[in-house]
C-alpha cells in the first residue's frame, strides 16, 4: 500500500515524458520516472521514497528496444530483467540479472530501474561498466549519448528531469570470456555479501564489484593490481584488496573482515579459471 497519493502518467514518447516532467515540476510537484515500480512501491511503504506524480516510461518505444545493429547491442531501459535473460544477447548480463531478486520480481524489475535505483547494489551495472558501454539519456535539451564511466560514479549522475533511455554495448564485448559470482549470507535469493563480475579482454581482466561498498564500482587501481601478472594471483588479490574504495560495508549481511575474506576467496575462485582459460 502506497501511503501517499500520486498521479500516474503514461507518455508514449520521450519528448512527452520530458515535457511532462518539466510541467509537473513547474506545478510544484515531485515527479519520478517509473519503470517496473518495484523500488518506488516498496520504499514508499518505509517512507524512503516519495512522489506526487509518476511518469511510466514502459510505453515509450525507444525504452523497450532490444536490438543488434551495426555491431552494437541496444537495450531499452524499460526492458524487464527476465526479457533480457530470455533473449540472452549478452551472457554476462544474463548471469548477473538472473541473480537479482527472484524470477517473478524480475518480470517487473527493469534494467533502467536496477541501474538507476536507490537501493545501492545496482548489480546489472557491473557488466555495463566492464563492457565500457554508452548510455542514452533524455532531458529537456534532447537526447545525449555518454560513456557509462562519465555518468555512473557510484550511482547514475542524471540531471534534474533526465532519464535513462537505452544502453549501447559494442558487440565485441558480449562474447568475451567472463565470470560472475554472487555470495550471499545465506540462500539463493537476496542481496549480496559480495558480487564480482569479470571479463577478459586482450589478456587483461576487467573486474567490477557490488556489495563490497555502499555503491557498485570498477576501479582502475584495483584492476592494475589484479593484472600485474608477474606476481602470483594470491599476491595480486591481496594487494588489490588494499586499494578498494571506502567505506567497506559493515552491516547485518556481514562485517568488514568477513566481507573481505569472502571477497578474497570469490576473486580467487573466478579469476584463476578466467585467466587460465
Amino acid at each position, binding site marked *: *500500500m*502506497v501511503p*501517499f*497519493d*500520486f*498521479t*500516474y502518467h503514461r507518455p508514449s514518447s520521450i519528448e512527452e515524458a520530458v515535457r511532462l516532467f518539466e510541467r509537473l515540476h513547474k506545478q510544484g510537484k515531485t515527479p519520478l520516472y517509473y519503470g*517496473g*515500480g*518495484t523500488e518506488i*512501491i*516498496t520504499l514508499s*511503504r518505509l517512507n524512503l521514497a516519495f512522489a506526487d506524480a509518476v511518469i*511510466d516510461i*514502459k510505453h515509450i518505444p525507444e525504452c523497450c528496444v532490444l536490438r543488434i545493429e551495426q555491431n552494437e547491442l541496444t537495450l531499452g531501459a524499460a526492458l524487464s530483467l527476465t526479457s533480457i535473460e530470455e533473449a540472452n544477447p549478452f551472457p554476462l548480463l544474463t548471469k548477473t540479472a*538472473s541473480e537479482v*531478486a*527472484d*524470477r*517473478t*520480481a524480475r*518480470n*517487473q524489475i527493469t534494467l533502467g530501474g536496477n541501474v538507476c535505483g536507490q537501493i545501492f547494489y545496482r548489480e546489472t551495472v557491473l557488466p555495463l561498466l566492464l563492457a565500457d558501454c554508452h548510455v542514452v539519456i533524455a532531458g529537456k535539451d534532447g537526447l545525449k549519448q555518454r560513456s557509462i564511466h562519465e555518468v555512473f560514479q557510484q550511482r547514475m549522475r542524471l540531471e534534474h528531469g533526465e532519464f535513462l533511455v537505452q544502453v549501447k554495448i559494442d558487440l565485441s564485448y558480449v562474447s568475451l570470456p567472463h565470470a560472475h559470482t554472487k555470495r550471499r549470507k545465506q540462500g*539463493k*535469493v537476496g542481496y549480496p555479501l559480495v558480487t564480482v563480475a569479470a571479463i577478459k579482454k586482450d589478456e587483461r581482466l576487467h573486474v567490477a564489484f557490488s556489495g563490497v561498498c555502499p555503491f557498485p564500482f570498477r576501479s582502475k587501481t584495483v584492476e592494475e593490481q589484479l593484472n600485474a601478472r608477474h606476481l602470483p594471483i594470491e599476491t595480486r588479490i591481496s594487494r588489490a584488496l588494499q586499494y578498494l574504495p571506502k567505506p567497506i560495508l559493515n552491516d547485518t549481511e556481514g562485517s568488514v573482515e568477513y566481507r573481505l575474506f569472502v571477497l578474497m576467496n570469490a576473486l580467487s575462485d573466478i579469476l584463476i579459471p578466467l585467466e587460465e582459460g
Partner: protein
Amino acid sequence: MIKCEILLTVNEESHSIIARQADTLLFVLRNQLGLTGAKPGCLNGDCGACTVLVDKTPIKSCMMLAIEAAEKPITTIEGLCDTPIQRAFIEQFAFQCGYCTPGFLINAYALTKQHPDADDETIQEWLESNICRCTSYQEIEQAVKSVLAKKHEND
C-alpha cells in the same frame, strides 16, 4: 485523494472501478473486486503470496499499480478451475496451512504452461519466487514435476 476510473479485465470479466492511482493491484483485487485469493503477505515483493498473472506473466500484485494493469488480461487464483496443477497439489499434499498456496499455484501454473520441458534448475528458479513457512517445498516441487510428466505422457 486522487482517484480515477480504471478498467480491469480479471478472469475474463471486465470491471470498471474507481481507485486511487497509487493503489496496488493487490489492494484493488481484494478490496474493490472481492477477489481475496491473492494474499497479502510481506507486501514487499518477497513472499509471492500475492502472485497473479498479468498478460500471462506471474507478477507480485503488491508491487504493481492497478492502473498499470489496465486493459491487460489478469488471472487470479479464482480464475483457475480444476487445472492439472491444482489437482497435483491435492494429490501430492503440497500445502499445509494454505496461505501461500494461491501464489504458488499461479506461479506453478505459468511455469507448466511456459516451460513444459522445464528442467530442475528452471523449476527451482521459478519456485524460489515464493515462500512457504510450513515448508512444503518438496511436495510443491513434486506437484510441478508430476504435471510436467503427465504432459509428456499425453504428448
